C-alpha cells in the first residue's frame, strides 16, 4: 500500500472515530469505499470528502418552511434524547475535563521551571473553566414540547446563536479556555510540538471562521423564512 492511500485510510478511520452516533454509519460507508477507489490521490480526495460530507450534511442551507420544520424537530428530538436517555453523552464533557485537570495538575506540581509552571497553570485554568461550563450545561431542560414548531424554531436559533455568535458569552468562555490550554501546552513543549500545535491552532481558527460564516448564513435564512411567513 502506498503512503498516500495509507494516509487516506488513516484519515477515513479517524473521521469514523470523531463522527456522532447519528452520522457514524455514513462515515463508515465512506471509509469502506476508500479501498475500492482507483488511484491513490483520488482515494485521498475521497477521504477528505468524508469530512466535508459531515459538515455539509449538518449545515446545509434551509430554503423552505418544510426544511426548517424538519431541521428544528430533529434538533429538538436529539436534545431531548441527550437530556433524558444519554447519560454518557451528557456527562462526557465535564468528566473528560476533570480528567484533564488531574493530568495537568500533577504536571503543575512537578514543574521545575517558571515557564512550565505558567504553562501548566494556564492548562489547569482552561480545563477548570471548561469543567464548570460543561457541568452547568450538562442538561438543558428547556427543550420545547413536540408540535410547538415556533418554540422549537426559537430554541434552535438560540442554540445556534449561543454556540457560534461572537456576542455570545458561551462562545467566548469555551474558546478562551481552549486557547489557554493550547498556549499553556505550547509553552511547555519542545519546538517540534510547538510547530504542530501552531498548525493545529491555525486549522482550528480556519474551521472556526468557516463555521461562523455557515451559522450566520443559516440564522439569516431562518429569519428570512420567519419574516416571510408573518
Amino acid at each position: 500500500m502506498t503512503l498516500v492511500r495509507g494516509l487516506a485510510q488513516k484519515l477515513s478511520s479517524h473521521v469514523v472515530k470523531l463522527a456522532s452516533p447519528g452520522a457514524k454509519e455514513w462515515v463508515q460507508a465512506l471509509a469502506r469505499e476508500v479501498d475500492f477507489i482507483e488511484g491513490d490521490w483520488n482515494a485521498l480526495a475521497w477521504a477528505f470528502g468524508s469530512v466535508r460530507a459531515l459538515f455539509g450534511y449538518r449545515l446545509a442551507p434551509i430554503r423552505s418552511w418544510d426544511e426548517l420544520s424538519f431541521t428544528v424537530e430533529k434538533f429538538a428530538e436529539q436534545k431531548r434524547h441527550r437530556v433524558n436517555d444519554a447519560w454518557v453523552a451528557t456527562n462526557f464533557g465535564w468528566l473528560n475535563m476533570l480528567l484533564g485537570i488531574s493530568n495537568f495538575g500533577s504536571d503543575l506540581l512537578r514543574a521545575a521551571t517558571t515557564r512550565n509552571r505558567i504553562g501548566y497553570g494556564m492548562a489547569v485554568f482552561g480545563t477548570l473553566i471548561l469543567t464548570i461550563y460543561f457541568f452547568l450545561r450538562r442538561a438543558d431542560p428547556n427543550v420545547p414540547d413536540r408540535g410547538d414548531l415556533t418554540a422549537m424554531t426559537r430554541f434552535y436559533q438560540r442554540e445556534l446563536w449561543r454556540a457560534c455568535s461572537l456576542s455570545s458569552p458561551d462562545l467566548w468562555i469555551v474558546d478562551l479556555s481552549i486557547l489557554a490550554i493550547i498556549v499553556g501546552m505550547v509553552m511547555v513543549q519542545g519546538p517540534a510540538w510547538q510547530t504542530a500545535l501552531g498548525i493545529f491552532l491555525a486549522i482550528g481558527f480556519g474551521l472556526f471562521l468557516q463555521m461562523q460564516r455557515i451559522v450566520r448564513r443559516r440564522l439569516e435564512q431562518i429569519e428570512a423564512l420567519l419574516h416571510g411567513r408573518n
Partner: protein
Amino acid sequence: MKMRRSLQTTQVLAEFLNSAQEWRYGYDLSRNTGLKSGTLYPILMRLAEHGLLETSWETTEEGRPPRHLYKLTHAGARYAYEQRNAEAAKVLGEPAWGGAGL
C-alpha cells in the same frame, strides 16, 4: 415533499433510475454522476432520512469489510420519476431560441 430540489440531487436520482431495482455502491454513483464524496453523501443521507432511499450493508466473504449499498424505495422511485418528468417538462417548455422578446 420535504426534499430540497437541486441539480445534484436530480443527477443522483436520475442515476438511480438507470437501474432502479439494483443496489448501488457510493463510489459507482460518484463516478457516474461526477459528484465528489463530499457532495454525494449529504444527498444520500437526506434521501435516506426522507424515506426515499434504502440502505444496506453488503454481505461479503470472511475477512473482507462490507460495503454500504443504496437503492431507491418505492416512494423514492416515484419521487425520482416526478423529478425527471418535471425537468423534462421544464426543458420542453423553454423555447430553443431563448424566447425573449418574441
